[in-house]
């Protein structure tokens, strides 16, 4: 029982991490109908910049305070993500208005390659660490309820908390601010939104910046857990089934999808993996999403696609 619960918790926590990345996908898809393949590369660039600047800034300015260094690095990285959003809008999206979804998908694939290369040239390609002071020690809970108790990783718990906060903030942003309303209008219909005076280009910059910010947070959380390196960019591919499962247009869907995939991966690896040789968590999420797609193409909470194929 204890082992099962531990696996379950482990799954929930890694699901939260997937959800963090999945959020970035959902945001951009919601507001521009673009499936942003480059989200993984954005996470990588953000995490690299965070890791490197928190190392460089104290050296340049000659002080030794982890907190100040991290805050400054965060600000610089956020500014970088904003510049990135501007550049993407200016040089890519603006020229691809009204193109098919697959064209845009391939364009983001190109952006992703570009960012992978650029990020590693600018910031180096070894493994870096981010230290934002997340608690590292595992904690034992519920040891009064049954024997042995449960081992919970506090780091995971913090990550989950961060993700939850982020989601709440984003939900409020989408629901209650006028920019959020504009974003939703653009998502519904580009032309209609434009005709009532919503500046499409500015909206895109905003949404890519927000997605960049989410990528930064995801990068910090992932980076401080596993270290910052190139594989971070493939983490986004692991998070892809999450958004398919949860529905591409739904923020809560990303969270729930993340949790389902996280738990499913861990449980299947532990209980089924030994039967077929292990390592099945690589494709489990995808096959789950695929089976799901066949019966409910819009995902758990996505808007229903009325479309005859």
């Amino acid at each position, binding site marked *: 029982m204890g082992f099962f619960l531990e696996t379950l918790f482990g799954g929930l926590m890694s699901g939260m991490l997937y959800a963090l990345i999945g959020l970035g996908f959902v945001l951009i898809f919601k507001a521009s109908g673009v499936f942003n393949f480059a989200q993984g590369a954005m996470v990588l660039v953000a995490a690299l910049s965070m890791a490197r600047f928190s190392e460089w800034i104290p050296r340049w300015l000659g002080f030794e305070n982890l907190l100040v260094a991290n805050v400054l690095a965060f600000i610089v990285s956020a500014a970088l993500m904003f510049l990135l959003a501007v550049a993407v809008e200016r040089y890519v999206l603006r020229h691809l208005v009204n193109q098919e979804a697959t064209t845009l998908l391939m364009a983001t694939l*190109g952006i992703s390659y570009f960012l992978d*290369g650029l990020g590693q040239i600018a910031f180096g390609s070894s493994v870096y660490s981010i230290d934002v002071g997340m608690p590292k020690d595992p904690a034992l809970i519920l040891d009064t309820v049954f024997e042995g108790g449960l081992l919970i990783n506090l780091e995971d718990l913090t990550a989950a908390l961060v993700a939850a906060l982020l989601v709440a903030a984003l939900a409020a942003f989408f629901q209650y601010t006028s920019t959020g309303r504009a974003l939703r209008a653009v998502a519904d219909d580009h032309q209609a939104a434009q005709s009532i005076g919503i500046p499409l280009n500015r909206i895109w910059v905003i949404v890519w910046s927000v997605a960049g910010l989410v990528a930064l947070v995801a990068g910090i959380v992932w980076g401080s857990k596993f270290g910052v390196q190139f594989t971070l960019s493939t983490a986004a591919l692991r998070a892809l089934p999450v958004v398919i499962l949860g529905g591409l247009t739904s923020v809560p869907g990303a969270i729930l999808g993340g949790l389902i995939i996280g738990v499913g991966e861990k449980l299947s690896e532990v209980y089924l993996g030994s039967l077929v040789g292990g390592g099945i968590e690589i*494709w489990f999420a995808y096959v789950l999403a695929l089976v799901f797609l066949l019966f409910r193409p819009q995902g758990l909470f996505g808007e229903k696609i009325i479309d005859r194929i």
Partner: protein
Amino acid sequence: MLYRENGQFKTSYRADQQIFPIRQDRILIGLLLAVAFVGVPMLASDYLLRAILIPFLILSLAAVGLNILVGYCGQISLGTGAFMAVGAYAAWNIGVRLPGMPLVLQIVLGGGFATLVGIVFGIPSLRIRGLYLAVATLAAQFFVDWAFLRIPFFTNYSPSGSVSVPPLYAFGLPVQTAMQKYLFVLAFVAVFALLAKNLVRGAIGRQWMAIRDMDVAAAVIGIRPMYAKLSAFAVSSFIVGVAGALWGYIHLGSWEPLAFDLTRSFQLLFMVIIGGLGSILGSFFGAAFIVLVPVALTNVPHLLGLRLSVDTAAHIEHMVFGALIVLFLIAEPHGLARLWSIGKEKLRIWPFPH
């Protein structure tokens, strides 16, 4: 002036519908084949054959296969590497388990297995499209990667997980030196490119294009979407599987699943985009481009006296590819093939202004 079709009158349907209706094209293709089959083996060095021409030919074949699916039928696929892997491993298994099977048959049967897998993973395309289909094909990629890594049967219980190919013979002739390998691959590529070209300009190719342009309209005029889509998946994965078998057998010699991972799939998709969606010729341009850019990136800075580390060169390569993809999608969505046909248009009247 050089490229005028004036005076070339067609007096029969047969002549009108031939594969290259313009005489200059026929001459050009004939010359190209002559150079490829005779000139290159006589002149090219071992390095050129092994490192550039053989990979180029095999990857063009794979790109032709992918182009049928993406460019002609409009079904996006990110799992090309997986179908290549299926072709390679199936061919290898057939060779190991059925000794005495001729090499050509092994490779073609490898393509046959890839076809089966392609159809299975193509079934979701009947329900979903676009991005969702991309996810389905990604599922194929990850599943196949895993299967060849973890299921020992496929690698014949080899302890290291990698497989290697014995010395090859085709029709009693050895396929071992670079030149022999080159000719073997070239023969395959020539046959399959002709096959693909004829398929896409025949009835089935027109069905694919109709489905690509608007599936509802295609269904209304009597094209069965299921048949058209699955046949595109089948033909595409067959060609890709054959290319995979060639890649493993001829180019690599011994390989592990990593040779056919997601990077390969992306690389092939890039070839198709840069070369030209919906063009057989474009697949060759795209493959040439993608094979040559890394070579250029390692050699050009060297010539200029710059010393780039291997890492930096790889990153720059990433950046160049990424930027080019975006550039092509924006400026020339039909890729290099379109530039080629624009060039031909210009040549019709060149050097006169009108």
